[in-house]
């Protein structure tokens, strides 16, 4: 019997009386790209935060390659190979951009992988190169634009050499051109390969996103959340044509 790559079962989290995530259950294969969508307040970000251990679930389990993630600290989970980005970017504003990424490169996981990379600075530079902001490496992070901050978030996550990457609204607040660039980077990352000294095996990804058109081009499968519960699951075509999903997004048609 093969161990599933990621297995989420009965995950529940309440804030006071509000069930933000209610008995969510799904599985994910290695190398798969999973889209996570749902109307505002559906619990998408909460679900990601439960997966990475930023929040502790009330009940349920998350197994990553057979190992239970619930109860571990955030940094342990990152070192097991699950990296995440933040929806509202959290750069170290007063540090140069390269130092932002070097912190990730200094994590035990990143230091232990890729023996040919002993120089943290070089590896951080390659992560920036991959994200397309290497020309601003010495600028302070506070000078970056919205789009570049998103890229910095991705560079930081990639620098930990993840096997599963959780992206929280990678296209949020980006212009159409920037969105296109970001989508390209994500596809390139998923394909895997070497970016300078940075070696990517093509991590699996869970992408939370509102820009469905762009998302559809990247993902293999979509999971839809509504009011914290799993509404639908399937390929992008199936999900788009699912009447329950349309209802959740647009509301019930009157008079029926």
């Amino acid at each position, binding site marked *: 019997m093969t161990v599933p790559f990621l297995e989420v079962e009965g995950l529940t989290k309440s804030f006071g009386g509000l069930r933000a995530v209610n008995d969510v259950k799904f599985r994910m294969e290695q190398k798969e790209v999973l889209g996570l969508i749902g109307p505002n307040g559906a619990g998408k970000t909460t679900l990601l935060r439960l997966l990475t251990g930023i929040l502790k679930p009330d009940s349920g389990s998350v197994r990553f390659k057979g190992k239970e993630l619930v109860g571990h600290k955030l940094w342990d989970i990152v070192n097991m190979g699950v990296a995440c980005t933040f929806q509202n970017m959290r750069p170290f504003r007063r540090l140069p951009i390269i130092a932002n990424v070097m*912190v990730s490169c200094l994590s035990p996981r990143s230091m232990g992988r890729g023996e040919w990379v002993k120089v943290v600075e070089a590896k951080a530079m390659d992560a920036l190169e991959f994200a397309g902001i290497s020309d601003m490496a010495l600028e302070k992070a506070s000078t970056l634009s919205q789009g570049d901050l998103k890229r910095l978030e991705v560079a930081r*996550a990639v620098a930990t050499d993840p096997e599963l990457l959780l992206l929280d609204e990678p296209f949020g607040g980006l212009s159409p051109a920037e969105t296109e660039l970001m989508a390209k980077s994500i596809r390139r990352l998923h394909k895997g390969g070497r970016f300078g000294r940075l070696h990517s095996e093509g991590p699996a990804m869970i992408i939370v996103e509102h820009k469905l058109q762009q998302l559809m081009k990247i993902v293999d499968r979509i999971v839809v959340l509504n009011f914290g519960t799993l509404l639908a699951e399937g390929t992008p075509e199936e999900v788009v044509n699912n009447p329950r999903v349309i209802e959740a997004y647009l509301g019930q048609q009157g008079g029926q």
Partner: protein
Amino acid sequence: MTMISPAVQLKRLVTLVRTEVLVLPSRVIVAMFVLALLGLPLVSQNPYLIRVIILTSVFAILAASWDLLSGFTGQMNFGHALFFGMGAYTSALLNIHFAIPPWGSVPMGALAAVLTGLIVGIPCLRLRGTYLALTTMAFPIILMGIVFALPDLTGGELGISGLQRLSNSLVGNYYIYVVTMLVLSAVMWKITDSHTGIIFHAIREDELAVRASGINTTRYKLMAFCLSGFFAGISGGMYAHYMRIAGPSTLEVSMSFSVVIWAVFGGLATIYGPIAAVFVLFPFLEFVRFWPEYRTMIFAVVVLLILLYMPEGIVHWARDKMEKECPRCKIRNVATRKSCRVCTALLD
């Protein structure tokens, strides 16, 4: 390996000084400061002057150690006197009751302060901001309570007196204190300039993001507490051995606050800022001694004015006046230069 002749080595040294030190006014000032400190006894052996500089050195270590913890990782410690007093009392007790010479008792005092750092650090891990400041402020008060509760061991209000000095000669003592200060400052600066320093900076900026980068922030925060305790403990031990007494004044709240004032005055998260501040403020306080009734007030006014007009501290202010950062390669240049000395980009 081939031997390099002394002449070549000397030439390399001269080149290094010319290309790395003489190019920046701030580095020239640091070099001149070090040389002046080391050369002072050759010019004057005034015991009062020597005493002031020895005490300044002790407090410079203390202020820099506070900066290492609070300036870098952002965990505001308003009870730094705890480490200072712990170092002072431990080395005093060891020196008096076990007859351990100062070169043994000072490091032991520092180790005791490291242990204290662990004990204080663990409950403080979950606290932030005001709560952390209040909690840390309580610890030296608690230790002072213990000191007063055990007068047989600690001497109560009188403290433990009759300690041995590190050296019995005036100049010998001077060199021990000044060289220790220079070496420890260099070590602290090197720590903050390393990868560990980057993680400390990042923890101050956003702790959750550091965790999301796979760094065990608990370990680094405790490490900052212990390192800071170590250096503050050394300064405490050396203070006790110089004054020949370890008393409750080392644990006073005013001691904790002086450290914060020095560090903020000099510039946070720099290490050299607090050192510069102590070397400005401490002798200044001695200088206005001839006007005793207004001493504290003058001190307060000076600190207020500096903080009002140079909120980043004197070191940053002075450096920005003398030097410009290259917009392209971020290397610092003398303010009078038209183009960057490394990448030749135009400076505006």
